[in-house]
């Protein structure tokens, strides 16, 4: 009885100000007056939706791959170093992690702009003659998103690596494995749960990105989130609701699928920002 009384105010609050509004909005996708799946049926041959959906998925996949390739070595370094070096690595990972998406996207605008640092540097080095167009391309989106989501990949992997008993790798070397073999055959397989958690986290968060692609992305590389916002601006609620349902369902399906893998259940329970 007392536990329920303690939880009730928040549950009521979340119901009234969060769950019911979102549900009511999502329901608009099933028709304003009568139940219908017509809106969803029309999505199947809607070129704008299909292109946006594909763009969102492929961006998420690229970003996930990028964060994995860049994140694993850093996670390994974070776990294998001690003292000051480890502290510095941690701060370098966490400082951007703690900085708002808006500010980090802005940083990439500064770097990638027509007169940004990257172009200036390339010009000065004589590698190019005219400034390259980097800002407002899909490449810019992918780079900035990798930068923003990298900590979400590093931290779960580092967590998994930290739980591996260091004597295992030593035992492998003792049994004649080269350092690379010891890594491939002992450390890598044991870190798979961390990798899976990181991949899930980054992929799902990528799907919902809005600010960054809108700021640094190309005018044609629209993500689902941007399309939803656009439709709301045009008061096209039914369409926006359909798209929201698709976006939400995709995220939940991915989480459900990953949760069947062992050791991932906690991915979303970490205190992530």
């Amino acid at each position: 009885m007392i536990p329920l009384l303690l939880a009730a105010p928040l549950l009521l609050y979340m119901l009234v100000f969060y769950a019911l509004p979102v549900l009511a909005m999502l329901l608009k996708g099933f028709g304003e007056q009568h139940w219908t799946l017509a809106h969803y049926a029309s999505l199947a041959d809607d070129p704008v939706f299909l292109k946006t959906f594909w763009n969102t998925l492929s961006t998420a996949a690229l970003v996930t791959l990028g964060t994995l390739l860049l994140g694993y070595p850093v996670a390994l370094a974070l776990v294998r170093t001690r003292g000051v070096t480890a502290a510095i690595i941690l701060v370098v990972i966490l400082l951007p992690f703690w900085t708002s998406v808006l500010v980090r996207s802005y940083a990439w605008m500064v770097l990638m702009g027509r007169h940004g640092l990257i172009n200036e540097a390339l010009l000065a080095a004589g590698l190019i003659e005219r400034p390259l167009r980097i800002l407002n391309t899909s490449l810019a989106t992918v780079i900035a998103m990798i930068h923003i989501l990298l900590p979400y990949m590093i931290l779960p992997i580092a967590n998994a690596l930290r739980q591996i008993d260091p004597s295992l790798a030593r035992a492998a070397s003792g049994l004649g494995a080269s350092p690379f073999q010891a890594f491939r055959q002992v450390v890598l397989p044991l870190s798979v749960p961390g990798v899976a958690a990181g991949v899930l986290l980054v992929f799902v968060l990528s799907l919902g990105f809005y600010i960054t692609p809108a700021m640094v992305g190309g005018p044609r590389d629209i993500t689902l989130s941007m399309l939803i916002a656009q439709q709301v601006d045009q008061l096209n609620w039914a369409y926006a609701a359909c798209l929201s349902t698709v976006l939400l369902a995709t995220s939940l399906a991915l989480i459900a699928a990953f949760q069947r893998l062992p050791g991932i259940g906690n991915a979303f329970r970490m205190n992530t920002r």
Partner: protein
Amino acid sequence: MTVARLLPRTISKAVVGLILLFLGFPIVVVVVVSFSSATYLTFPPPAFGLRWYEAYFGSADWLRPTWLSLAVASAVVALSTVLGTLAALGLGRLPKPLRVVAAALVLSPLIVPVIVVAIGIYYAFSRYGLVGSPLGLVLAHTCLAVPFVVTSVSASLAGIDPRLQQAALSLGATPRNTFLQVTLPLIRPGVIVGALFAFISSFDELVVALFLSGSGAVTLPRRMWDDLRFQIDPTIAAVSTLTIVLTASLLAVAHLLRRRAQGNLGKASVT
């Protein structure tokens, strides 16, 4: 032989160094640019000065949204910390099926794409005149901040040795006194950490603000966003630097508290 053995190590160090540079450099650039004396955006700056900070502090257009963001975030902290802490105390003791549903409801803002939350709330709030009002922002941001409070407090609750509560009872403390004199002091760091996260989550929030700010309740991120659409002048770098400093120092406090709490409870807390 030594070269062959040292080379891979040097390469791997260089690779990690480059990745860390990739992570840290953009932030450094923003900070450096904010101290530029140039009237346009260029890097490295020709000379240093505080003109962009002066521009920021001299402009009501910037200060008004700043105060609003601080006020909204403070209200969000108050609301989400009270609701979230009470709920965290109750959630763990609810019967199983109810607990799972309640936890899903409370924690789902962490995984539901924020655009979906934003337009859902916008859709409902627009009917009740809550768009363009600070109250609407507070109510919406609280939904997004609550998961941070609940996870943080739950983690510190889970970290408490249940024997401490038993000890208090055996020493004659009523359940009420046990809660006030033992449980509450022990979860205090978790509550504060949750409150700090709640503050930052509201202070940095943009997507919901894009829909709910209207013209009457423009927050700092919203103001920055509007500015960026037209120009990228270094005032934004100065504002960004200030917000980086604010959030970084709040999170440093959170980190220290968490470390101290762990030492205190003698048990590693989950988060």
